[in-house]
């Protein structure tokens, strides 16, 4: 059998494929048209319109953080003030070295007890 060239053989194939395209029903063509218009509409939106939702999201997150984070912040424990008795000991100390020793022992005691 003679083998026809690809180009000649493809001619009726293309016609058959085009026939399939031309036989698409009106509902399908309408949906295709709508899909195209929707795709093009995305492009027509201004950059501000496209950024509106992300910007709104960022603003909400910022507001939320301003409102909620301070409420969640745990107050740091205040350092224990020196008790009155400690002050008395420090005042009664005969010299600065003894006062330092007392202060050191108190700090050591505090560290061990915590």
């Amino acid at each position, binding site marked *: 059998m003679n*083998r026809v060239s690809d180009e000649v053989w493809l001619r009726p*194939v293309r016609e058959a494929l085009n*026939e399939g395209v031309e036989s698409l029903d009106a509902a399908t063509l309408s949906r295709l048209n709508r899909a195209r218009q929707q*795709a*093009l509409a*995305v492009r027509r939106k201004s950059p501000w319109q496209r950024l509106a939702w992300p910007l709104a999201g960022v603003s909400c997150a910022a507001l939320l953080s301003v409102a909620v984070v301070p409420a969640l912040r745990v107050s740091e424990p205040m350092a224990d003030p020196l008790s009155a008795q400690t002050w008395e000991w420090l005042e009664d100390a005969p010299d600065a070295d003894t006062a330092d020793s007392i202060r050191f022992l108190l700090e050591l005691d505090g560290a061990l007890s915590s």
Partner: protein
Amino acid sequence: MLFADAQWMKAGTVGMTMHSDNAMNRFLASVERRALRMAEFSVRDRDEALDIVQDSMMALVQKYASRPEAEWAPLFFRILNSRIISWHRRRQSRRRWLWFGNELQTDADDDTDGLPEAEDRQTPDAWLQAHSLRERLEAVLKQLPLRQRQVFLLRAWEGLDVKATAQAMGCSEGSVKTHYFRAMARLREVLGEDLS
């Protein structure tokens, strides 16, 4: 003066956008029907095919509208192909998840069904005579492996050259030639030499 310049620039930008909108509209209108048929050959469902084409159009407009018009066709068909492949992957993973063991086995190679062999149980000659060229062609196209089918449609129907087809398929030019050769051989074998 500055205001006038700004107005002029704005008008120019709007004009350019409208011009490229028109060009994009024309391009999409020229390929959408064939794209739908290509997707339909692959997913065998018109609604799914329409969704795939719409997704592809959206992606092209959003990401590549600013590219030169000559690049739109390979880019669009590349997006379309990747959407079709994703559709197949999603369907396979859904099936795996649902554990349809037997069906998975037969449908995993999605490209082997298509010819209506069980439909009529006729001899190949009788089947060929009973159906129009279009029906026969579509049946054989559905039977081809996905890549062969896409390469064949892009080259023979869409008219893309080897390079553009390779871009659209995301593969090498050699691979395009191989797929096209195999698709042509299979189509000629099943449909015969004389199509008149």
